[in-house]
């Protein structure tokens, strides 16, 4: 049973919808800037979405009950992805969301009140749990029944897409809205700073002098359907989700193994699942966070799989920042765009080749025949997921 991508929606620092994101990628306009966010004491390079919670509520007519920013961003992305889809009696629809910190944007405010000994506003902690994040989004679109949330740090949304594909393949649903969302929070910014992998400058994925990541926020969701659903909905397929795999590094809690074991396994198995030949992979949207560790580990894994014939690859994280759980879905949208528009997407801020690998990423937005795209999302705790999207 084939898995078709029929809809997508995205909100990130480089645009509030697909068209804006594409235009930013084409015009090399990054959303990362040095900024003082209310959730963090220092100025840092980060990529916030340019809409406040109230803007999001108003724009998408969100009910006046507690919603985390995580849910609001998700609602924005699903609004675009879901578009004119309708609920039909013979189309079983499910929702699979993902997030790494749930409603932490509000929880950290609640907890500060508790520590300061003020009477705490409990509505701020009501939206903490990850499951609630997905429910708020799904309910906004009238989706009931199977509503689930995955949380595997940076590979979360890619895993949501993978689970959706597996469920569709085995006939457990007909149409699934899957993706992820994460906000910028003091918790995560401080977290990555404590690991000394937060670049004090604009991040440089795959560059010799890279010095860490910059965080971003956002959400992206895809609508995946099987053939039966498409005949009922009449939705036009954009491309196929053809291959997927998840593998664990089992090396160390925060570092990826230098030989890129988990990454290699994930890519190898995803490619095998897809049935696509190595030579048909036209573009790789890498995880490429800009940390010393990830970019080396991922490059090594690419060499393990492709040898000397590594397809054009780039990381788009110098545009969007690392959006944690949302990254896998944001980059899935970019992978689909690569296929739909037959283009390679540029990596920004790259100057010097990595001495260990000699690999150069794509740095220009350029037309290209694109058959299949490999999208990587490699998470904290060694959770590695690769997806293969293919032109129909």
């Amino acid at each position, binding site marked *: 049973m084939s898995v078709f991508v029929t809809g997508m929606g995205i909100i990130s620092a480089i645009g509030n919808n697909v068209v804006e994101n594409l235009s930013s990628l084409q015009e090399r306009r990054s959303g990362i800037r040095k900024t003082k966010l209310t959730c963090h004491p220092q100025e840092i390079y980060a990529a916030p979405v340019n809409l406040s919670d109230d803007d999001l509520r108003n724009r998408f007519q969100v009910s006046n009950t507690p919603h985390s920013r995580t849910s609001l961003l998700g609602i924005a992305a699903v609004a675009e992805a879901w578009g004119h889809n309708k609920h039909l009696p013979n189309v079983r629809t499910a929702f699979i969301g993902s997030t790494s910190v749930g409603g932490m944007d509000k929880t950290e405010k609640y907890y500060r009140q508790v520590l300061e000994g003020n009477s705490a506003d409990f509505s701020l902690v009501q939206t903490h749990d990850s*499951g609630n994040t997905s429910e708020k989004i799904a309910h906004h679109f009238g989706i009931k029944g199977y509503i*689930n949330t995955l949380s595997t740090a940076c590979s979360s949304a890619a895993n949501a897409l993978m689970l959706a594909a597996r469920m569709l393949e085995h006939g457990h649903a007909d149409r699934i809205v899957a993706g992820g969302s994460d906000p910028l929070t003091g918790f995560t910014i401080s*977290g990555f700073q404590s690991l000394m992998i937060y670049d004090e400058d604009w991040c440089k994925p795959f560059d010799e002098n890279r010095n860490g990541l910059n965080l971003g926020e956002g959400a992206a969701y895809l609508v995946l359907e099987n053939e039966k659903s498409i005949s009922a909905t009449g939705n036009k397929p954009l491309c196929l989700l053809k291959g997927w795999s998840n593998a*664990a590094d089992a090396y160390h809690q925060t570092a990826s193994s230098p030989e890129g074991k988990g990454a290699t396994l994930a890519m190898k198995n995803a490619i095998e699942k897809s049935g696509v030949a190595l030579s048909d992979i036209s573009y790789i949207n890498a995880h490429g966070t800009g940390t010393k560790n990830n970019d080396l580990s991922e490059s090594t894994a690419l060499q393990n799989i492709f040898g000397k014939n590594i397809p054009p690859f780039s990381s788009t994280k110098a545009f969007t920042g690392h959006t944690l759980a949302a990254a896998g879905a944001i980059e899935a949208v970019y992978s689909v765009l690569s296929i739909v528009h037959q283009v390679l997407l540029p990596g920004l801020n790259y100057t010097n080749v990595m001495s260990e690998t000699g690999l150069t990423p794509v740095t220009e937005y350029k037309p290209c025949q694109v058959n299949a795209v490999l999208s990587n999302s490699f998470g904290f705790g060694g959770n590695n997921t690769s997806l293969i999207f293919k032109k129909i």
Partner: protein
Amino acid sequence: MYYIQSSAYISHQDTFRKKGFSKNLSENISTLIKPDYKEFINPSLIRRMSEVLRMSVACGSAALKDAGVITADAIIAGTGLGCLMDTEKFLNNVITIQGGMLPPTSFIQSTHNTIAGQLSLALSCHSYNMTHTQNSLSFEYALSDAMLMLDEQSGNILAGAADEYIDPLQPVANHFGLNRFPLTSGAGFFVLSDKVSAHTQAVLADVLAINDSDENVCKDFLQRNQLSAPDIILTDGYHNDNLRQLRQNFSETPVIPYTPLCGTYATSSAFAMHLAIDILQEKTTHVSGSEIKQHRTALVINQLLPGHTGLILIKNHEA
């Protein structure tokens, strides 16, 4: 067919590797009854682990040993609120340490997937590693994923759930009226396989997790499993209305509330599954004042959160 090869659970009852514990359940659930973690976890890893991680790795390791299996073909965990102790610790540091450096360990340990991640490290397991976090249905979704995995390929899947209590939960529970029973912790893992073995304890017949609380959900579930009523029902029993309704709908079936036995936490239905397996295997005749006459099928009905229903059907594999 999905076979439960082993089941290891740590709770506020004496459940860890205690065959027949269903015959000795206590009304006193004031303490977590834990094993010597050093028997199951490398001391160099233990030092960083919060309670939820210690429980999970101990149960995961024990379950694999008890199933006679060296490594798992997938590790799938469910958790409602994740690693709370480390989350709170790091958040506390973020707010209180002004200008100084922040110790990173609690941040690293705070992500929801640390549970499954630590298991993959402890077991050197490179396979599929997933964490489901859908509040009270996290465990049922983890089980569904495991069953889907076994449909895709033969093997042994380690599936389970964990949640831990921290003090800051209490005022939140009080505010939202979720303090009817003590807030507690619990964790456990089960080895599921598509093949029966000498270790097989029970059959996992069917699982459903749904964002719905309609009475028909349960009826339809039983119907698709060709059952008019199971021999035993274990239910959260948190809300009196639900309990009353179940006893009315299933007047011939012992309906046993499990929250008074294990306390309140998001993934307590995993405790119920562990209890169900023991009741069926040991043919326990009395639990919490209810008489159990038949031991062929047990249904766990999880309605802990309004609007959410989790159903787990276990069958005696010898039946």
